[in-house]
């Protein structure tokens, strides 16, 4: 059992903390799925149900590529919407394709929490002690939080870098460094080091630059490949980007946030809307209050919770004259089309500023 290779689907840069976590709580070799490419999506789409949402296809593609490279234990999480049911269907599809593997879900009764994760890990590593598990769960959360803080800084400033690719290159270096973390002290040291390094990268940022908030569904927000690197492409037009969704938010803050969200959105929404629907309504209001120049809403095609929330978001934006554009990503979305829309958005916002 301990020779079996463990793998899991990608979720942006979070494969690094997940790798770190698994390598300390199991004795098995861990394999990060091969980087997402167009091939991943093609593979995933080929074996996916007709109108399932895009993240399912990416996840399935990741699994197939991992299995092809020798993985034999696959991990899946989820929650909120259909995401929680991905696992069983993906497992069935892969079995029907003839792969031999063990499928472990972090979910139990559609819930994801420290207890269910522990239960899942025990099935791989029966000797895992609670103390060891809790320690590494905490350090992993800490690492996720550190990465999220640095990523926030990157989004605010990457559009103004003086030397092209300087942010990207440093980010790559940082991730491979974090992958080798040991305990909480080594994570903290790395965080401090890279925070300093990022702050020392030269930028040319005017005081009142254009500011855009990116809201929407969680996978397309966090896995940049699936949104055709929308943040990077937007930033290129000298725009500061704000994004609310990250793992720190989803795993920790969201648990305590419902009341706050309902209060913020009280003029429009009375109840929770499912998945991140209410969150995005509240974020829209927040961005308007903070005088942002525009909003970009992203989601996979057919994402039900967001579809329910969009008419409400649209109404709020219209009442407050807030420009918003929507992207619905699909396996056939074209690169060029997205760039055209983003360029037009940047032009429009610049013109509005002039007035």
């Amino acid at each position: 059992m301990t020779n079996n290779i463990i793998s899991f689907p990608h979720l942006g840069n979070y494969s690094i903390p997940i790798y770190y976590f698994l390598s300390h709580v199991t004795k098995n070799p861990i394999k990060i799925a091969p980087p997402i490419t167009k091939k991943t999506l093609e593979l995933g789409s080929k074996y996916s149900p007709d109108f399932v949402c895009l993240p399912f296809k990416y996840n399935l593609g990741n699994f197939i590529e991992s299995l092809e490279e020798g993985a034999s234990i696959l991990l899946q999480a989820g929650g909120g919407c259909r995401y929680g049911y991905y696992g069983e269907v993906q497992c069935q599809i892969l079995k029907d394709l003839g792969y031999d593997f063990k499928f472990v879900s972090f979910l139990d009764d559609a819930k994801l929490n420290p207890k269910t994760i522990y239960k899942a890990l025990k099935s791989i590593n029966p000797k895992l002690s609670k103390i060891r598990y809790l320690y590494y769960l905490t350090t992993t959360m800490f690492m996720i939080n550190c990465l999220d803080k640095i990523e926030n800084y990157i989004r605010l400033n990457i559009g103004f870098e003086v030397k092209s690719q300087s942010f990207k290159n440093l980010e790559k270096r940082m991730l491979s460094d974090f992958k080798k973390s040991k305990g909480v002290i080594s994570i903290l040291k790395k965080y401090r080091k890279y925070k300093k390094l990022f702050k020392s990268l030269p930028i040319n940022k005017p005081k009142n630059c254009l500011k855009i908030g990116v809201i929407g569904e969680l996978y397309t927000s966090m896995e940049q490949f699936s949104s055709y690197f929308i943040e990077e492409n937007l930033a290129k037009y000298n725009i500061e980007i704000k994004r609310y969704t990250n793992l720190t938010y989803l795993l920790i803050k969201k648990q305590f946030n419902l009341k706050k969200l309902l209060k913020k959105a009280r003029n429009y929404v009375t109840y929770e809307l499912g998945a991140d629907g209410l969150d995005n309504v509240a974020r829209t209001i927040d961005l308007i209050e903070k005088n942002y120049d525009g909003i970009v809403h992203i989601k996979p095609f057919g994402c039900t919770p967001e579809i329910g929330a969009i008419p409400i978001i649209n109404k709020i934006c219209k009442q407050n004259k807030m420009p918003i554009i929507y992207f619905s990503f699909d396996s056939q979305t074209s690169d060029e089309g997205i760039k055209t829309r983003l360029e037009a958005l940047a032009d429009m916002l610049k013109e509005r500023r002039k007035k």
Partner: protein
Amino acid sequence: MELIVGIPRALLFYKYKDLWLQFFANLNIKTVISPKTNKEIIDKGSSYVVDEACLSLKIFMGHVDHLQNKCDYLFIPRVACLNKNEKMCTNFLVLYDLVKNTFEDCKILMYNVDVENNEYEFDGFLKIGKTLGFSYFKTLRAYQNAKKYEKEKRRQKYLLETRKLRSPHLKILVVAHSYNLYDDFVGKPILEYLESQRIAAICSDITTGDEKVNTSISHSIYWTYNKELMKIIEDTLNHIDGIILISTFPCGPDSLCNELIIRKIKSKPILYLTCDNNASDTGIITRLESFIDILKYKKERSTNDQQYN
């Protein structure tokens, strides 16, 4: 002046119409129900939501649109959770707020069922009673009476559908959410066609009560309604000749559940139909025809085999 409550003939109406209508009747409240779904209702409904929303939601919004000036209160149920550890499609969660924001001038009757947050069915009715000015006991009596009525209706329905399982004709289980199965634009034409071909079409909404069910088809399924559908497939599988799955484009839960059903149920032929507001009837009829032919052929062959043996 007499108070009128408008009820959209869409989504959960088909599942709870006995309970709801009887409850309002017990309180002597006049209700108006929107007409059967037609093309105009769908077109109207489509204009209120995103193009890629599922057909069932578009239909619902069309019905609300129809009712907006014809009643004092709109009855918009928000059913977020029916059993602990189970979920509903998020569309049911947004209905109230979606309607509230879309039809700003309408008054909405609050009805919220969210068992996970300790809001049970009766709490929902209690809120209605309060809004309309009825005492706790009056509401309770109306509810208990309506509940009894609903139970009896469900029992009758159960007998009716299970009787079909003993039919000498071809027996097909038609699996769909009740709001799709009985909608005049989605499932109804299919049921009528099957009937015209002298086929026993067993409808999938034959739960006897509100109890939580379990199914061996899927171990992690958490959508209450899809779970019930899987359970019925499991229960009737040995008595039927084939299964028709009907879904509306692009239904979230169905996209995964129906895939799993098709992959797991290998003993009976399955036809999967997806309805879109664009799909033409002829395409569906063609596919139904050939599916029935296959089933007939299969049945004949198996009876022949039995004779030989």
